[in-house]
């Protein structure tokens, strides 16, 4: 009597897998290649989600335009962190991105005339693409796969060209890079804005898939989750590393959900596993980093 293959469960997880992949591709590249540790990607994700939600609810903009505008909104927001990265070095920049995240979250909560504050925004129409409505997870999956491929193309395209080598060089030795006419800060800002754009696009997908957005989803725990996944990647293989990180994350969180751990322990266990992965990856990479 039970369906052999519960497609919806399968599809739902894969949709989130590919939505998160977009954010994580950008974040891992900006962290490892451009050396910008950002705790603010939860905010870019949120800004993308809210932009798409507001555009579709109030101005019934189409799915595609809303997604592009959501990405651009996040890109615009990233200019603030870009400005900070000009003047601050790594650890101060990380704190500035944390402040940016918290201010954005407070804004989403308090600007209730626009964002409906703590009630969140309901009634976001599902994604319409070429005439059919993607209501079920299965029908939404192709969209998120395509957009994830879009993210892969962008990041690999950059990392394989001399532009990508210059980006790596901008962290290795910005002084020497300048003697060849390249501008390290412009390169870093370029990477940051592209990763913010991808996070914004992912945010709009989340809005269209869940048809509801709430400020509580775009706080520090989301940023840290993205960072934990992005940690696995390396500058040389950003995409492959992210896939390993994503697989690790989803398998552990879904596995824990399926094993009948007492429910109240699961939430903490997932967090503890995330923390341990970050810690072990950082320690492992430190031990093997060639000087």
């Amino acid at each position, binding site marked *: 009597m039970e369906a052999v293959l519960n497609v919806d469960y399968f599809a739902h997880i894969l949709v989130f897998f590919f939505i998160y992949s977009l954010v994580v591709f950008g974040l891992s590249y900006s962290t490892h290649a451009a050396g910008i540790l950002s705790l603010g990607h939860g905010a870019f994700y949120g800004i993308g989600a809210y932009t798409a939600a507001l555009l579709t609810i109030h101005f019934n903009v189409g799915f595609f335009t809303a997604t592009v505008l959501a990405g651009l909104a996040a890109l615009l927001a990233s200019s603030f962190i870009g400005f900070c990265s000009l003047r601050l070095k790594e650890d101060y920049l990380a704190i500035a991105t944390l402040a940016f995240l918290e201010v954005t979250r407070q804004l989403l909560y308090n600007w209730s005339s626009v964002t409906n504050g703590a*009630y969140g925004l*309901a009634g976001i129409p599902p994604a319409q693409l070429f005439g059919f409505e993607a209501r079920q997870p299965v029908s939404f999956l192709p969209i998120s796969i395509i957009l994830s491929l879009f993210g892969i193309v962008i990041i690999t395209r950059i990392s394989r060209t001399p532009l990508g080598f210059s980006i790596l060089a901008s962290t290795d030795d910005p002084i020497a890079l300048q003697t060849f006419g390249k501008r390290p800060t412009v390169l870093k800002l370029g990477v940051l804005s592209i990763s913010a754009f991808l996070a914004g696009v992912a945010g709009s997908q989340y809005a269209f898939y*869940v048809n509801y957005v709430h400020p509580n989803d775009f706080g520090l725990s989301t940023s840290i989750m993205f960072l934990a996944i992005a940690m696995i990647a390396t500058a040389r293989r950003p995409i492959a590393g992210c896939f390993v990180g994503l697989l690790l994350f989803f398998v552990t969180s879904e596995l824990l959900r399926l094993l009948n751990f007492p429910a*109240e322990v699961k939430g903490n266990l997932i967090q503890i596993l995330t923390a341990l992965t970050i810690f072990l990856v950082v320690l492992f990479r430190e031990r093997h980093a060639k000087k």
Partner: protein
Amino acid sequence: MMKSLVFLFACFLMFLGSCQPRGTNSEVVIGSAISLTGQEGAGVYGENIRNSMELAISEINAKGGTHGKLIRVVYEDTQLQPQVAVSAVNKLINVDKVKVIVGAVSSGETLAVAPICERNKVVLISPASTSHEISNSGDYIFRTIAPDTLEGNAMAKFALQSGYKTAAAVFVDNAGTKGPAEVFKQAFETAGGKMVAMEVGPQGSTDFRTQLAKVKAASPDAVYLLGYALELGNMLKQSKELGIQKPLLSFQVMEEPKVVEIAGNAANSVIFTSPTIRASEAQGRTKQFIDAYRQRYKKDPGIFSYNAYDAVYVIAKAIERYGEDAESIKKGLYEIQNYDGASGQISFDRNGDTAQPPKLLTYQNGQIVVFQPQFAQR
């Protein structure tokens, strides 16, 4: 590297596909998507709900279960985050093949999972989300807790009857407390009253001294304090510390023992609305539930416990009458009228909401008693 990646991805897909729905057909499986861990005291609400559901199920199963089958609950943690709630509900619907889910806790989560339950024709019954925005989010969506409009209006009526001309409100920036505050303001002002201060505290903060100082300066006739497990206790304590002499009004979160533990004797003589009565004056089904809960868990039931207990019973009642598929549960629930539950009289309207009439209660040296309002008859 690519080969190993593809291989890894393949096992991931197989792993996902392989998780067959468990559950033999000799038992009814109910889903429960509640916050068991997370920020802002999320775990407290989950624990209250889980304890009451387990209590109700053990009682029902002791009497042979429902529709000839025993009941089992699968719990999923939502961490008070809509994003996590969506995945939790997805797993309950698609893996555990549940037809009814008790949850979610915060209004944000319920609004996020409601469309999924509607789409998959699964009944969602929330024991905790009070926002009035949930009322029309679908005909599979029910609640065993009254919408915030009820308590807001009831307290406004009481304030007007007591002759208060001005009032102030201090609440936290989340749906559960913002709703009653705004409803109270609307009702109070339409009837001629005047709100002299509406002070909001940011999420997760426990320091309301400045908000309360502004309220004290506005010298209202009464102060309406709204917060949850981590906030309300501190609001009360800090009002006493700031020497606010005016009568303090509040809502059903006052039932939560943790709030009184934090507030200490500041909780005394706070007038609050709540459909249930904890401790001394409770009678009938509520008293029976309180005694059973204390006997099993050695502590008093907290907020949402009563509503979760009733949720299980009304589900069992619906299944008993029409069967365990979602349509029958839905039909059965809509037919439940003035069911005498632990959280008061439950009757579902066409929105799936219930309206247990809130009673006026207060604390006297640590005990909840019914508040006898001596309105000056004018």
